[in-house]
Every structure is written in C-alpha cells, then in structure tokens.
C-alpha cells in the first residue's frame, strides 16, 4: 500500500537555509531515511544526508524529526498519521555543513581529552581476568553507537554554545563511568577529571539524554548520577574523606 506524504526538509548551509516542502511516495514498512533517499532519487538529487547501515547501529543518520532528535533509519513512517506534515532538520546543537549533515567534531575533540584505559602495572597483556559481575555495568555503556543524539539534545550545550569548552556531554560521562567502574583500570583520578575537566557539575540531570538514546542506555541513572555520587565521595563528603584517611581503604 502506498500513499503520498508531506515532508518539510531543511535545505541550506552555515550561511543560511530554509524548510522546503515536498510530497513524496511512502510505502508500507518504510522508515524516514527511505523517504529521504526517495527524495534524493526523484526530486532533490543534491540533498545531503549522512547514513551508513540503515539498521540503527552505525549512528550516522542522526537528525531531528518534528523537532525531536531521532535516527532517520529507526523512525518508522507508520508512527505518523497520513495527513501529518513531517519536518526533518539537521541536529541543532552542531554546526551545519549542508542540508541534514552536521559537523560533529566537537564530540571527537571531547573523546580525545579522556585519558585512555590504564592497564594494571602488575599484569601483562593476556593475564587480565575479570568477572562478569564486575564488568556488566561497563558493558551497558559499550552499547553506545555514538550517534550523538544525547549530545545534541543536552540543553547545556544545545542552548548555550559557550559551554562547549567546559562541558563534555552525556556520551562522555558514560565513558567516564565505564572507565571508573572498570575492574582493571589503574587510574585513580577519573572522578577529579569528570568534575574539573568534563564539567559533570553542569549536568542538572533532566534526563533528555536518556529519553533520546536509541540504544536505551540508562545514561542518567546508571552513568551520570553514579559518577556524580563518586565525585561527591572525592570532593564534597568529609565523612568519606575521613573514612579513607583513617581506614586506608584500598581499591574496593
């Protein structure tokens, strides 16, 4: 069964642009990315869109559909009514390159700043042994496909460009949590780094990152809040500080 759907797609670049109206054929079982491709094939051959896997695993086709950050390939056309006008724009937190393609290099800069996994000094490669219960929290964060929808929706940088220098964003707080919870990571300054360099204190836990995550990672509850609590242990809780001094707690 096919029908015609009304689309509004943002066309332009950093100098300016506007929403263009299109009427496009839609077939049963299609997703928004299929329609964008049909637009390219039939009406707008120069429409720029970034995509790769069409399976929700590469994280390339992030955009905003009716104002909501979504993956184009994971948004089914059947979720819209027949007479609904579907508006597709690029992500609004990053500089636009052209049409639906944005420059997400902000995220790669933030990724590079995080100190990598530090191997334990007393173990040689090949000798690492970890129990499942000790790595399962980190495994949830490894599901991240780096679509950067969480980075895009986070109001700390979305609504305040000036915060981009001081704030890493939710994707990199889950990286911080992943490493701080890693049973073999030898670094002991992850919490200080999260507070001083990543700006975790700027997060006001309003959970939009969790709402938009296509991998359903509980970013706020399982990564950001635990990291905030770990920062409190190190920076703001005199009882924990005293306990650590008195009892010389080891690496528990």
């Amino acid at each position, binding site marked *: 069964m096919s029908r015609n759907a009304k689309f509004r797609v*943002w066309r*332009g670049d*950093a100098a*300016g*642009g*506007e*929403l263009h109206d299109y009427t496009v054929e839609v077939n049963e079982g299609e997703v928004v990315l299929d329609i964008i491709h049909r637009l390219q094939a039939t009406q707008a051959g120069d429409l720029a869109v970034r995509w790769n896997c069409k399976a929700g695993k590469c994280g390339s086709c992030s955009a*905003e559909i*009716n*104002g*909501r*950050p979504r993956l184009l390939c994971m948004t089914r056309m059947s979720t819209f009514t027949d007479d609904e006008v579907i*508006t597709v*724009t*690029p992500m*609004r*937190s*990053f*500089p*636009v390159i052209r049409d639906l393609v*944005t420059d997400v290099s902000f995220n790669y800069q933030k990724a590079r700043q995080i100190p990598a996994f530090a191997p334990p000094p007393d173990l040689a490669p090949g000798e690492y042994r970890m*129990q499942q*219960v*000790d790595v399962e929290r980190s495994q949830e964060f490894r599901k991240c496909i780096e679509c950067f929808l969480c980075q895009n*929706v986070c*109001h*700390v940088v*979305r*609504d*305040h*460009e*000036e*915060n981009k220098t001081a704030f890493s964003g939710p994707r990199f707080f889950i990286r911080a949590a992943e490493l701080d919870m*890693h*049973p073999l990571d030898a670094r002991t300054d992850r919490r200080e780094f999260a507070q001083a360099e990543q*700006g975790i*204190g*700027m*997060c*006001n*836990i*309003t*959970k*939009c990152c969790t*709402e*938009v995550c296509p991998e359903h990672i509980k970013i706020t*509850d399982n990564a950001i*809040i*635990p990291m*905030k*609590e*770990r*920062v*409190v*242990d190190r*920076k*703001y*809780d005199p009882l924990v500080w005293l306990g650590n001094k008195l009892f010389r707690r080891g*690496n*528990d």
Partner: protein
Amino acid sequence: MTGVSAPGRARLGVRTLREDRWWLAPLATFVGLFLFVVYATFRAFQGAYYYFEPYLSPFYSPCLTTDCVPGSSDFGQPISWWPLSPALVILIFPLGFRLTCYYYRKAYYRSFWFSPPACAVAEPHRSYTGETRFPLILQNIHRYFWYFAMIFGVILSYDAILGFRNPQGQWGHMGLGTVILLINAALIWLYALSCHSCRHIMGGKLKHFSRHPRRYWMWQQISKLNGRHMLLAWVSLIWLVVADFYITLLAHGTISDLRFF
C-alpha cells in the same frame, strides 16, 4: 547569540519544532508540586489539628517543642525556645531530602525553572552554570539528607505502630488511621531506599562487586526500587497529604475514626 540560534547552526528561527504536547508533563508537574507546597506550607504554619490520639500527623513527627499538644511528643520536648509551629523545626529534613532528590531536581528544573522545559525545547535563560556554583552546588549534600531520611523512616514506623492503640492508650486496637500511617511509613521507606544516593552507598560505589557479594545483592535490590524512584516520589508525597488530611479531619472533629477492633 547563543543556543540554537548560534552562528553556524542550521537557521530555523524557532525555539522548537516539536508539535506534540511537550508542555503537558512540565505543567502537570508544576501543578502537582505547587499544590503540595501550598498545602504543606499552610499545614506547617498552622500549628494545630495535627494530633488525634493515637495518630500524629507525619508533618509534625517528631513533635519536639514545648508547644506540642499533650501526648504527641514521643521523644520528649527538648526545645522550649522555638516560637513558631513545631513542624517548622523538623521540616527541613524531609524537605531537604526531597529538594535535593535526583528525581525532584529533574522535575523542578524542568517545570519551575524551564531549564529545559522539555527535551529539544530551548530554555529561556541567557547563561547556565548547572550545579557548579552556590546555591545549587549544595545539591551534593543529598546523601546527608538521606541519612536523616533513614531516621525519619524509623520515627514514622514507630508512629504507625503507636496507632495500634485506642484513644485511651491501650494496645491491641486498630483503626483506619493505623492503616493510613502504616502505608505512609512503608511508602517513605520505599522512597528513601530507592534513592540514588542509597544505591551508591549500598554498593554502587564499589569497583569490584565480586569481592562484596552481600553489597552486590543489596545494590541489585536497591537498583530494582530505583527504577521506580519517580513513582515512589509522587505516591509517597501524595500519601503524606492523605495521612495529614485524615488526621486533621479527625482532630477537627469533622469525621470520626473508623475503628476496626
């Protein structure tokens, strides 16, 4: 120009393109919390109708000042210098616990401060520093309020147990008020135990669960509760009002307690 209109970003000229009813959730949250604040403020300042043998309103428990009505002070009356309602002495603890709670923070940042009002809806503020400066940096003391919440859980449970007396103080009796106070104590426990700080303290802070099997088990149980933290925050808040209102009606003489035995 900052935010979604910053140079280089796609120019759209509107703060959001969302056409769904994104304003409904923050509006409902605002109305719910506002009504609670109005009711709680009135009741806390009223200083009356909070005790009807054997029930003590959770807003006034523990009743520690010399102004407390006879029979309501289970822990003595050590405070004689306090001129206002006895509720105002202790309310800072449950209030502080809820104000610094990770769920309520989300709720009021969104619905009262529009920071942001909803996801992908631009906030109206020119600048933003989050929880890095005074006073919001004080949100980091949430765990200390949680310690007090544990004490309040014990006190409210004790109050509920005292409800198994009749108005003459004899044990082995029960009324509708007893059930209401039992549910109240249970909800306060569930809300406090589902807290994110509790989850951290019980086991979340550990790097190796395998070395601490008991704490890992506790962390797992708390994590299950934690998934319902928002629900428990609301239900326990509403039930506080139910419990207080029921006791107010009893103390006022508007209704009489339904006694079971």
